[in-house]
């Protein structure tokens, strides 16, 4: 459904952020991309979002090439990026301004309810907590009914309690329309709790280190419990793949 074929991205400075990456993602699949900083995972999302152009390779969504932002692809960033001059409801409806008014308002009302902010549509973004703001950002991306939702470390700026809450919100929202999720995270537990498949990336240049399926069924629409023996075994496996990368990164630090 989503095909990344030989995807490369080299920055003008010569840094090779992504080298020849190939990945197939099925419809409704949840894929987590984990890796240390600088492994190209955010670059990968920006390419799929159409915000950046690849230096080589192709991205296809249901056979259609993606070269610019596509209506079938939504994105949630690390920060909520709400528009400060729009109310919560207006923010959620920002991307569906082209829809008829009744349809738009119905979608906004449903979304507000799903993220637990029913009755708060008239509030300003400055009045929201970090977790509430990120829930609004999730809703803003999802009301446009994307086939693929990209999440760029969406919960990393939140405290552990709020993060768990948002993971539950994400799963509940996902259950509604079951889009394909591409979730970039550096939190292995988060990847294990949410994903069907985990792509572990390695840096210099950014590439796929290994790919793991998470066999444990997820109690829908809930995140999977972490800390089970199976999860711990997978976590050790992922850490093993990441370890060489971490040692490489530790070397220059040690030299200083």
């Amino acid at each position, binding site marked *: 459904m989503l095909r990344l074929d030989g995807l490369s991205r080299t920055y003008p400075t010569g840094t090779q952020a992504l080298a020849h990456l190939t990945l197939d993602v099925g419809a409704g699949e949840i894929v987590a991309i984990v890796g240390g900083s600088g492994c190209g995972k955010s670059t990968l999302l920006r390419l799929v979002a159409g*915000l950046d152009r690849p230096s080589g390779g192709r991205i296809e969504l249901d056979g259609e090439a993606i070269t610019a932002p596509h209506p079938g692809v939504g994105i949630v*960033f690390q920060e909520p990026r709400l528009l*400060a001059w729009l109310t919560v409801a207006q923010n959620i409806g920002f991307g569906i301004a082209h829809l008829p008014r009744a349809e738009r308002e119905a979608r906004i009302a449903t979304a507000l309810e799903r993220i637990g902010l029913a009755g708060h549509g008239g509030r300003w973004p400055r009045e929201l907590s970090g977790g509430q703001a990120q829930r609004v950002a999730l809703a803003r991306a999802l009301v446009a009914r994307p086939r693929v939702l990209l999440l760029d470390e969406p919960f990393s700026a939140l405290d552990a309690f709020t993060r768990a809450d948002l993971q539950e919100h994400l799963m509940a929202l996902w259950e509604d329309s079951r889009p394909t999720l591409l979730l970039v995270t550096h939190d292995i537990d988060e990847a294990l709790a949410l994903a069907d498949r985990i792509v572990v990336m390695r840096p210099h240049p950014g590439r796929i280190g290994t790919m793991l399926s998470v066999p444990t069924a997820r109690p829908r629409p809930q995140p999977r419990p972490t800390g089970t023996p199976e999860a711990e075994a997978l976590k050790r496996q992922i850490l093993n793949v990441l370890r060489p990368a971490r040692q490489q990164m530790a070397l220059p630090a040690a030299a200083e």
Partner: protein
Amino acid sequence: MSAADGLIETPGLRAAQRPGVFPRALGAGGRRALLGLALPVGAALGWELAVRLGLAQGRLLPAPSTLLATLAELARSGDLALHVRATLARVAAGFALGVAAGTLLSVLAGASGLARTVLDPTLQGLRAIPSIAWVPLFILWLGIFETSKVALIAVGVAFPVYLGTLGAILSVDRRIIEVGRSFRLTRLQLARRILLPAVLPQYVVALRAGLGLGWMFVVAAEFMGASEGLGYLLLDGQQLGKPAQIMAAIVVFAVLGKLTDALLVAASAPFLRWEDTAQRAAEG
């Protein structure tokens, strides 16, 4: 929050410029207004007392009562209305022209890197010319009547508006522009739905700076030969040795300047209710 980072002005500046504009609870607001009045009213009373007691002559610096009497006389004879109307008309015309030019140029320079590279150095060079230096040229080109006066005011207004607006356009957060791009907004939609509201708070500040300069330049313009206007009243007072008339004109300038600024702020307030500033937090 992060989206608004680039839009927040220094809270100190805000706090200094805003008092009295937004309705507040009467208790705290009334107390603050009284505190703000204490200094000028106290000084006026002190001076009045000093003149009454014979401690000061009050010839070059007339007592407040003389000042009020002069104002009342000017108002009664209809002169005050005449001069105020003339000056207001000049400021209004010059401000409108200056804002239009400054806004247009800043939008051009902000929208295209090429336009900015071509325009900005020239405009910065022109800005460096003390605007009063244009006076002789404007008189030669446009004559001694209204046109040259309005042109001078417009020049004075245009540059701060250009500078402030361009700065605001260039400092719009890249990350919220990406939000617009990810929803496939066209350039025009991006300008209307993201850039315009993001720029608005700083644009209002630029307009206020422009208006302040407009009031400054109207005096310069009226000094270069006018038969009516508050600047004429100043000059007339100097030539005929009437310090009370000079001070009356100065007081009228202060009142008009403050009123027009307050009007500008009040007109923009409904569009800026969303602002996340230290001032707002203190009020909330």
